[in-house]
């Protein structure tokens, strides 16, 4: 039984109900499991590969939902190894990492950047790690989450944006930002330079760890945006040649405090 396409005739089913009905009907017949390589007998077996998968009628428990996946790239078991892996990844991604002892040193670093680059305006948001970094910055500043409503144009004219972050993932060299902790959605993507300030204890080993923590930190009210940033913006669209700074920030600078 199919509802008339594109219409909701009187007494006819809604698109939602039609689609869900089609889904239920479709799933009446079970599909075989995929041909898991790691479950097949070892080399030398004579079982034809097309047949092995379809004999399984077991439920979904063949591979446990295992958060610690040893087959993905290593993220490091100790803070030292995680930091080392992170540093290697960031370098490969052409993101910059800068270690400082404290926020005051971080502020000095930002100041030197603003001077040498001759920045006219720097954007930021309200956060204990971020606000101190603006101390002494010679140019104008724009706070995105201030008393006034957010002004897209004002942000567009900023040379750099400074944000905090939710976590840093060693395994992939990713920085997790969110609309709750990093000044909304635009601050970490619109300005040409994105500066992230974080503490060492924000480093986690794997993507799975970061997702797990985000889910529980959200506790039913996730921020409207969570984004894993892995290096500066890039494209390979032109003859497959890598260019940085396609639309998002051309430079990504991580300041690690501690």
């Amino acid at each position, binding site marked *: 039984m199919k*509802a008339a396409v*594109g219409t909701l005739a009187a007494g006819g089913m*809604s*698109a939602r109900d*039609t*689609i869900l009905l*089609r*889904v239920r009907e479709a*799933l009446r017949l079970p*599909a075989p*499991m*995929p041909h*898991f*390589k*790691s479950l097949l007998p070892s080399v030398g077996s004579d079982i034809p590969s097309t047949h092995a998968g379809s004999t399984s009628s077991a439920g*979904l428990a063949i591979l446990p*939902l295992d958060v610690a*996946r*040893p*087959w*993905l*790239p290593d993220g490091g078991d100790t803070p030292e190894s995680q930091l080392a892996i992170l540093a290697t990844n960031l370098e*490969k991604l052409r993101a910059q990492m800068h270690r400082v002892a404290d926020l005051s040193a971080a502020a000095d670093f930002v100041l030197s950047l603003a001077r040498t680059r001759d920045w006219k305006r720097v954007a930021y948001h309200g956060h204990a790690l971020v606000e101190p970094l603006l101390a002494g910055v010679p140019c104008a500043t724009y706070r*995105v989450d201030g008393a006034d409503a*957010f002004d*897209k144009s004002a942000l567009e004219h900023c040379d750099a944006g400074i944000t905090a972050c939710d976590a840093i993932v060693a395994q992939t*060299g*990713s920085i997790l930002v969110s*609309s*709750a902790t990093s000044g*909304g*959605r635009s601050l970490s*993507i*619109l300005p040409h330079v994105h500066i992230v300030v974080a503490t060492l204890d924000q480093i986690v080993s*794997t*993507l799975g760890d970061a*997702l797990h923590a*985000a889910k529980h930190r959200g506790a039913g*009210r996730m*921020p*409207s*945006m*969570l*984004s*894993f940033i*892995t290096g*500066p*913006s*890039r*494209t*390979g*669209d*032109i*003859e*497959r*040649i890598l260019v940085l*700074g*396609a*639309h998002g*920030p051309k430079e990504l600078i991580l300041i690690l405090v501690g």
Partner: protein
Amino acid sequence: MIASDAQSPQLAKKKFLRDATVHVQDTGHRTFVQKALGGYFVSRDAQKARYRDWEQARDAASLAKWSAVNRLDELLPLFVANFEANGGQVHWARDAEEARRIILDLVREAKAKAIIKSKCMTSEEIHLNAALEKDGYGVIESDLGEFIQQLRGEPPYHFVFPCMHVRREEISDLFGKFLGTPPTSSPEELTMIARRHMRQLYVDADVGITGANFLVAETGQISITENEGNARLTAALPRVHISLSGIEKVVEHLDDLAVLLPILATAGAGQQMTCYNTLYAGPRRDGECDGPEEMHLVLLDNSRTAILADPEQRDSLHCIRCGACLNVCPIFKNVGGFTYGTTYQGPIGSVITPHLRGLSDWNHLSAASSLCGACSDVCPVRIDIHHHLLHNRRNAARTAPNRLEKFGHQIFVIVASRPWLFAAGGAIFRRTLGVLKRLPLPLLRDWMATRTLPAAPRKSFRQQWRQAGKDSL
């Protein structure tokens, strides 16, 4: 039922053969495209090597999609409930026409003056841009590759690398023509031209349209993967965010992304992670300083439930659109992306297009393969792609057989069932091969023009065996 794109059954096939023939003879183009892909293999292998067990990672990715698609009846409503609880609005579209209508209505209600769009293959599938333009709305493609294709008036060449066939000089000319910029042969400068051009458009746009890579049922979030940051801008600055997604994109757990996001990047582009992987839970929340006021998600069926209903090929819905199968396919590399004449090219495109658009019209795509299996070997979610091409061929032979072909195979069965007839037929063939080679057989003309045929031996193996007095039954 989906109307096929108004072509007679033979027309699409003839066009395919014509375009393929033209394309394979364009050595310059083939070489350029194959060179462009060369770098992908190097990076991909390097990234694969970083996995401690690549095959297990594929198993995990495959299981995540298998369990989600096979429980879509539970997980799709769960996703919707959670997404709506986050403040998102869901719209259901049974087919392309309904999806276009819904989006047009949303755009009208938003009183949109400027629409910006990030990469969304599903929107290509439903021909959204043409519909919006017909209604008087200009749509800017913000993804660099899609933007270039939009200016060229061409669809994407490859669903991950839309303009891989275009040389930098051509892009320079294109920008000169449409944006008035001076010529340059630097990819960096060309990218900066596009970047500068887009920035004001992002700020001015009031509606942003994106796709979605994954729909996370557990948390009611949509996940979008990209390298450029244009999707993030599209979903950050405009007042209204519309996302379009096929219903099959559901995954159950947020944690599934811990393997799916890296494997998508590795298989698709030889990266460890794509630059931006973003989860959207809904429109801006209270306390957030920016973000869209409204977020709409259009869920599209458009024959996906038909594929779902085929247990043999249901796994083609596991596809995460990484494009790896295209990258390794010798057919794709030699005929190019446009020859397919479909939204989704390459091996996965050849599998699903008959379902989306009709088997009788599109089964030639499944026939145009040597079944080498490189696609299935590379697929991160273990879709049995090349075997599905066989299944499509079987289905086509059942429902719309070529009478002459079927007759030929029936004759072959008769011959193969009678060893004496087989041996006799073989002997005749071998004797006459010399003559046959010189005949202008129209069906075999192209085949014979491109190769030298061997000389036939005087005696077959079975003759030699018998004459040697060897053991046989």
